């Protein structure tokens, strides 16, 4: 019924590197470190109100992460993570994140085949949530 389709979420595909091969393959970045990194990034550039941005992890694989952000805050999110270089207290060396892909619908995400399972689950959850009340 809503005229423009109400876009709820924005999906990011992020990759984290420290531009230094051996450190990269030594450390495995788990979800906790990702969350810590993103939190620092948002805090540094947007303060408390930045940290309030609602985001959740669709899937985390070592250096790759798929994140879902509220559509209204997608600009603050992307601007804050692209301008932040973490200090070396997390992993021992500064880390930067590059945005590989940013899209507003799930099926546009280019994923390798073995990611099918979590993607299907995310899509189904999305459908069930979105269909009911406009």
């Amino acid at each position, binding site marked *: 019924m809503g005229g423009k389709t*109400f876009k709820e979420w924005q999906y990011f595909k992020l990759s984290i590197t420290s531009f230094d091969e051996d450190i990269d393959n030594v450390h495995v970045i788990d979800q906790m470190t990702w969350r810590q990194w993103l939190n620092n990034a948002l805090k540094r550039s947007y303060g*408390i*109100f930045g*940290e*309030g941005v609602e985001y959740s992890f669709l899937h985390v694989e070592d250096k790759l992460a798929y994140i879902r952000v509220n559509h209204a805050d997608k600009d603050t999110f992307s601007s804050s993570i692209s301008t932040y270089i973490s200090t070396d207290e997390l992993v021992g060396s500064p880390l930067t994140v590059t945005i590989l892909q940013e899209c507003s619908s799930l099926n546009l995400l280019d994923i390798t085949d073995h990611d099918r399972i979590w993607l299907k689950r995310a899509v189904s959850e999305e459908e069930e949530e979105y269909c*009911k*009340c406009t």
Partner: protein
Amino acid sequence: MLVDLNVPWPQNSYADKVTSQAINNLTKTLTTMHILGYTHIAINFTVNHSEKFPKDIKMLNPIHIKERFGVLMANTGLKLYSRITLIIDDPSKGQSLSKISQAFDIVAALPISEKGLTLSTTNLDIDLLTFQYGSRLPTFLKHKSICSCVNRGVKLEIVYGYALRDVQARRQFVSNVRSVIRSSRSRGIVIGSGATSPLECRNILGVTSLIKNLGLPSDKCSKAMGELASLVLLNGRLRNKSHKQTIVAGGGDEGEDDVVNDVQGIDDIQTIKVVKRTMDPAQLGHASKRHKP
């Protein structure tokens, strides 16, 4: 008509005593609210749903507004209402709302668990749904439950008092408010202060700018404090003072006489309004000249 729906009553449960110092602090908060321009304030008594409630109706409402704040209301022209907020943790233990909602003007639910949230959004007859903004939300808020609850007429309350207390609470407040606004699609949002001391009261310009930054469109912001909040008051008062919103006790021509604004006129226990006879059949019946608003 500027409404604030949440000024906390210092008592946490029926057991603990209310010190006069706390009452004084509450009076000071109410006066500061009045200075800032608020006209209708609801004093909020938060209690656990699973607590043992006193049996008879008179004991249910510990905020005796007339005795304690009668003079204040007369002096400043404030209109005070009583509100109960039920903390719903495990729905099985709580008892029925019908007896409770007769004693209070507004009934609100504060779910702190997943089951509590589903119960309060589906079949509880309440006016307001509020959350603990200082700590994590019970669950990830889904459109389905929140929007259906808003369509039913239950409003969502944002309490900005948590933002002023300390940095950690402010951080939680920001993310909670964002998810509330997202999940309710910025419909049916009401703003309350939750001010425990005079220092935590803010005027409408400050509050609307805070909520505007959190994502609520600006027209809904200004409506949240005035129009939607008065609808919550109307809904609550009609539940007690009228039979299913058809026949209402009281009423009259001047502005102060509808069921919301007429705080003293309608006698609480008997829900009747005794008044000098003004309508007699011999009067002429044509429409009165419309006095300029």
